[in-house]
């Protein structure tokens, strides 16, 4: 075999097989992710208590500086470190393969850490308060762009390690047939990541050269168009990755199998083809782009990627319903969900993530991604309301849920304080959900995003927001505090478990690998031969979702029809 030094262990609790190099790198990436989350989370609290206008805690300069770091630590560093861990897990662990070129993976990790540290330091020094988006010609420090580029190169190396591992696994025949659905989802995330990072390089490298004086100017519209190919697409990596995590958790917690591989994989394929077009969402209220361009792109080519998300939104709970019904929870439409393990944070986190992502993030995202409707919320606090629903309730909570599974299996520790872990997804998910709704409400009233003071103190012509806007910011503040408590519990439980959780049996490291040999069924059978409608409860949920979607969508058109005429 190729690599004599490769050592493997089989987790005695889950039967998963870890390659030692991959295991170490998954751990390190996960730890770097949680450290980023911690820094970003502390800043989140300070920002929250400032935007809660009645409290208005910190001064303007620090507010804008902290908001810049918060955006980067959360949207880029926490998420992408964790995603690299997910990629290594989905390739090396799920395919029972050695990790391709661990040395390069270490180099990639080193670059990512270096980049993240540089960005944090330069912004905290007060040199680059330019927000996550760093729109030109707002000047950032060269080290800021350099740090981002280094981080991106490191992440790109991680993507290629993942692809290389798929090749190794195939060549060394560590599995039979096709790669698992979850790995397929991770592959989708990886392909989108390569596109994303390429877009980032295309715009950040010239911007770096501009910041050191080699290039005279960067066109602001060009910057926005290409930068969003990086900025929004990076969030599409999250979508693919957390959908893969949903499928993984459904499989882990219920032994659920996909309702049909064809549909779920087809939906991931639609992501690969169309999801990135969504970066046009950010440019709908911009000058200089045609309506045809905006309509085609913002609709992801006729909403084919939205269709994919709606499919995943049905098939993930649908597969759980089928698995539960097979276990005998067949009474009525909803016994399967009532009897689900709601006390297990792996499941509850995943399910709140799924519902929150769909109802809050999905519906608001499509609304604001409609060419004309976008004018109603562009750059208002509605926008962070939307993306906290997708990235925090959706991605972050899904990743948190997965950690509760990884602590015993990957880190070989017992989760400390299971009582706290049990309530954590509820505090975090529900707090965040209300927080997002309140932000969307305030945005509908015109409250701007990235704004230190909506009383406009010191301005010669201040505007007075209606009392409802203040109320919304108050609700946002209170719900945000609940979510912060959920975040603190998460960090306490994960870090605590790693440091002083009870050590569990690791299993022996040997050069032996257990190859995945599956009893391959030859007969082509679906789920519902008997009933023909295998997941009726999920279908009812889906129709509730669709009703909410349709109503909210047309309410916004109605509102648009009352504003000033524009043409």
């Amino acid at each position, binding site marked *: 075999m190729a690599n004599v030094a490769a050592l493997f262990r089989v987790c005695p609790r889950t039967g998963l097989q870890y390659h030692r190099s991959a295991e170490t790198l998954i751990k390190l990436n996960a730890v770097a992710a949680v450290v980023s989350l911690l820094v970003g989370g502390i800043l989140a609290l300070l920002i929250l208590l400032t935007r809660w206008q009645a409290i208005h805690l910190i001064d303007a300069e620090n507010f804008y500086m902290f908001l810049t770091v918060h955006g980067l630590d959360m949207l880029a560093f926490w998420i992408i470190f964790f995603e690299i861990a997910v990629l290594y897990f989905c390739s090396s662990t799920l395919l029972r393969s050695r990790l391709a070129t661990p040395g390069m993976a270490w180099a990639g990790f080193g670059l990512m850490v270096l980049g993240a540290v540089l960005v944090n330091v330069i912004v905290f020094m007060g040199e680059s308060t330019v927000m996550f988006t760093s729109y030109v010609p707002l000047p950032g420090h060269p080290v800021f762009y350099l740090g981002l580029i280094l981080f991106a190169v490191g992440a790109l190396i991680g993507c290629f390690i993942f692809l290389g591992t798929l090749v190794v696994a195939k060549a060394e025949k560590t599995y039979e047939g096709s790669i698992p659905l979850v790995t397929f989802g991770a592959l989708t995330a990886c392909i989108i990541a390569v596109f994303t990072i390429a877009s980032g390089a295309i715009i950040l490298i010239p911007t770096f050269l501009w910041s050191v004086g080699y290039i005279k100017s960067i066109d602001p519209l060009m910057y926005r168009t290409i930068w969003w190919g990086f900025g929004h697409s990076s969030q599409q990596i999250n979508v693919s990755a957390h959908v893969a995590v949903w499928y993984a958790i*459904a499989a882990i917690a219920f032994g659920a199998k*996909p309702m049909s591989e064809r549909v779920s994989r087809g939906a991931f394929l639609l992501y690969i083809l169309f999801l990135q077009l969504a970066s046009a969402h950010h440019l709908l209220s911009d000058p200089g782009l045609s309506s045809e361009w905006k309509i085609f792109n913002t609709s992801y080519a006729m909403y084919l990627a939205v269709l994919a998300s709606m499919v995943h939104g049905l098939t993930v709970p649908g597969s759980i319903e089928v698995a539960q019904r097979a276990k005998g929870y067949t009474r009525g439409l909803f016994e399967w969900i009532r009897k689900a393990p709601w006390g297990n944070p792996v499941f509850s986190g995943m399910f709140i993530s799924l519902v929150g992502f769909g109802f809050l993030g999905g519906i608001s995202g499509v609304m604001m991604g409609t060419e004309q409707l976008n004018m109603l919320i562009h750059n208002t606090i509605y926008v962070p309301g939307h993306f906290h629903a997708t990235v925090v309730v959706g991605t972050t909570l899904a990743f948190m849920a997965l950690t509760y599974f990884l602590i015993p299996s990957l880190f070989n520790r017992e989760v400390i304080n299971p009582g706290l872990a049990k309530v954590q997804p509820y505090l975090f998910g529900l707090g965040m959900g209300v927080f997002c709704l309140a932000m969307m409400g305030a945005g509908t009233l015109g409250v701007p995003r990235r704004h230190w003071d909506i009383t406009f103190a010191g301005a010669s012509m201040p505007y007075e927001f209606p009392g409802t806007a203040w109320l919304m910011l108050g609700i946002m503040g209170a719900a945000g505090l609940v979510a912060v408590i959920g975040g603190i519990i998460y960090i306490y439980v994960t870090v605590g478990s790693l440091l002083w959780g009870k050590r569990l049996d690791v299993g022996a490291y040997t050069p032996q690998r257990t190859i995945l040999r599956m009893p391959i069924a030859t007969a082509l059978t679906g789920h519902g031969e008997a009933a023909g409608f295998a997941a009726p409860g999920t279908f009812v949920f889906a129709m509730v979702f669709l009703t909410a979607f349709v109503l909210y969508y047309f309410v916004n058109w109605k509102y648009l029809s009352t504003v000033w005429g524009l043409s």
Partner: protein
Amino acid sequence: MSAILPPEQRIWWKQPLDRVEGTWILIAFVWCLIMFFMMPYWHVYGKQNLSNETYKTTPDVYGKKVQAFADQYKVREETDEKIPVVHPPAGADVYMLGRLWAWWPILELENGKTYRLHLSAMDYQHGFSLQPENINIQVLPGYEHVVTVTPNRAGTYAIMCNEFCGIGHHKMVSRLYVK
């Protein structure tokens, strides 16, 4: 067996669909098409569409245009900074600029009349945010965006900046009158 293992059936792409999935895909697809066609529909029948008329310009050239416009139609001055209030005739080309940290000048428009509103930025990117109407448009330096507007309610409006533009961003707010 499950989503974390290779598919049980080698030829998984021939596995039949469950009716739940098939029905949902059909419903969702129809909804997606409706949402898609709403946008072109609104361009034909709706009255709120953002204009595509844009010209390349420079802060110098644009600044001079706004100054000439303000000088021509100025009716009075407001605030300690003596910001001109400009009352252009109905149907006119009206100009406004965003800079650190103000919108300039103050416009006075007539209800129900249509104007060609020119927008551009002098330095960084800014966000034109008309309140309480809540119409929001990105304003870029180097691009002159011409938006045709028809106010439909008399009153005093505010124009805030909602694109971060530095430490004075939260003080960038101006006024607009509709008589």
